[in-house]
């Protein structure tokens, strides 16, 4: 247990980096929200704004050996795991220069070279896959861990429950991160999750379950650090339940009549970026000027990404038939 604080202590550079990443997610999502409303973005997008502390708090503890799987609300996890923001934006616009050459779209952005096994259009699709990457890491002895991000909706899906059981039975280096933002589409998690706390299910699957304030970067970072260390040391899987809320609807276009004003309260009182900024300026680890510079840099990056995406070529007709198989 000694050395945990050293492991968890973030340097000035690291604090700036995590702030920048959280800000990048926020800017990216707010921008996609605005651009989607113009009708130029095809299909569906599901925005992560509000939940940044979870993706960044967890992924800032990961390295090249590690893999994550995500959900349909995957932009935050992609950015947190280091997927290129310009390629992501181009993919969302369906362009050839996108992360998936325009063939996946928002719900399927992936970058296996960065250990990002993909956003997933199937609720509960990620956890079984993460059991697999964790198994591979264990058998190869890489020390890598695998993280399955899933929502309160997916916490009720059989694939998730089976995966938690399997991860314990096989003692896999896996972390299950339940992002409980209170809603599965329009349905409240307090109604749909019979045990009320997703973390309470962990005991039933032979692993510790911890509730974490998902609006607090430092709380997430700390809990994730411990879970990841436990996994790397062969201690097996952990379930972390983040409690927070999403700022936008289930998808863009959702009128959200099922909600009752909690977003305003969250943006004003609980916002993870605001709390992070308040905290690090209070301790003097960063100055407001540092943060302002980061904000400006991020804004410019996102602007550039959008401009590039809009100007990028669409896939060619021949691209329709490519990459179904490695070799047929």
């Amino acid at each position, binding site marked *: 247990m000694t050395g945990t604080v050293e492991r968890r202590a973030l340097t000035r550079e690291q604090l700036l980096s995590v702030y920048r990443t959280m800000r990048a997610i926020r800017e990216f999502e707010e921008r996609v929200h605005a651009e989607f409303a113009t009708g130029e973005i095809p299909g569906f997008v599901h925005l992560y704004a509000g939940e940044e502390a979870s993706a960044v708090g967890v992924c800032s503890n990961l390295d090249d050996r590690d*893999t994550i*799987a995500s959900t349909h609300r995957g932009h935050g996890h992609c950015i947190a795991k280091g997927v290129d923001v310009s390629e992501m934006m181009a993919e969302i616009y369906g362009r050839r220069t*996108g*992360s*998936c*050459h*325009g*063939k*996946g779209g928002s719900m*399927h952005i*992936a*970058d*296996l*070279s960065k250990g990002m*096994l*993909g956003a*997933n*259009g*199937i609720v509960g*699709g990620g*956890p*079984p*896959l*993460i*059991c*697999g*990457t964790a*198994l*591979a*890491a264990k*058998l*190869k002895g890489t020390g890598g861990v*695998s993280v399955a991000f899933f929502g309160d909706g997916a916490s009720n899906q*059989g*694939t998730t429950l*089976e*995966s938690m*059981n*399997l991860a314990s*039975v*096989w003692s896999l280096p896996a972390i299950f991160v339940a992002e409980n933002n209170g809603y599965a589409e329009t349905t409240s998690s307090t109604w749909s999750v019979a045990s009320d706390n997703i973390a309470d299910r962990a005991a039933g699957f032979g692993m510790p379950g911890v509730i974490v304030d998902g609006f607090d970067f430092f709380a997430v970072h700390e809990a994730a650090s411990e879970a990841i260390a436990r996994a790397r040391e062969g201690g097996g899987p952990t379930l972390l339940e983040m409690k927070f809320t999403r700022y936008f609807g289930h998808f863009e276009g959702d009128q959200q009549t099922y909600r009752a004003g909690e977003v305003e309260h969250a943006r004003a009182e609980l916002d993870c970026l605001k709390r992070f900024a308040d905290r690090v300026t209070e301790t003097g680890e960063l100055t407001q000027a540092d943060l302002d510079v980061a904000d400006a840099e991020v804004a410019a990056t996102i602007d550039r990404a959008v401009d590039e995406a809009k100007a990028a070529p669409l896939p060619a007709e021949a691209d329709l038939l*490519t*990459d*179904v*198989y*490695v*070799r*047929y």
Partner: protein
Amino acid sequence: MARTITYREAINEALAQEMERDETVIVMGEDNAGGEGSPGEMDAWGGVLGVTKGLYHRFPGRVLDTPISESAFIGAAIGAATAGMRPVAELMFVDFMGVCFDQIYNQAAKFRYMFGGKAVTPVVIRTMYGAGLRAAAQHSQCLYPLFTHVPGLKVVLPATPYDAKGLMTQAIRDNDPVMFFEHKALYDLAGPVPEESYALPFGEANVMREGGDVTIVALGRMVHTSLEAAQQLAAAGVECEVIDLRTTSPLDEDTVLESVEGTGRLVVVDEANPRCSVATDISALVAQKAFGSLRAPVEMVTAPHTPVPFSNALEDIYIPDAQRIVNAVKLVAEWTR
């Protein structure tokens, strides 16, 4: 050097030789060893019908028993494949595909395409299919048409021990997700199989018997039933060409079309239910691309549009037999406008 071994042993040998050659090959499934956590011995079964017997002790740590959690462990095999392993997972009965189909057709099959060519998913999912053991409706289906339909999957159905070993070897070495269908009534079938390792390519049908009068296209166990029918028909002066498709995806269209262009008459034999089956698939192919050569309508010999019945009397009628194939061949042979 070939000697006679069974279909079951041939698959086991392919697995063992590939596991020997490549340490990234791992095996997983329910009771693939057998005995996990139980007080008696490990490798108690080696798979419910013994296909993976002996591998557990020979390759320590690489044969993994699983809980009854198909969506989790089939998904895990797929995930591990994206991370550099070559897993051979067993879906014990293809009838169970319902509980894990998403991982197969929405995840494994689509990664490469959805991720713009950046994913490689070299997973093999072995599964048992077919009627004949009185296992009834939920343990006797074929279902390979459902998988053949999905772009991104390869579907393999060996009919002989020789093919079983060669096609399994290819399946493991193949860099795409492969569904490997093993007919449960063929496990005890013996045949010549070389000792050394060899791989048979996908998308190459096998002409089991040459003949100029009628083409019979069959797959899996129906290949043997078709050969039986062909022998009877030869005695009556009708020479049949029997083609074993071996793989439905990729499909060897050329061999089928070439044969039909020669004979002008086609009977397709498929143990699966008739709607949207391989039988209808081959029939449409021929109607579209060899229409000019056809001298009779295509005849399909398939199971009926029913679940598989339990009683001996009924299951024996359900499964296409040699007599029905003989009748179908005679129909097309004698057909005139």
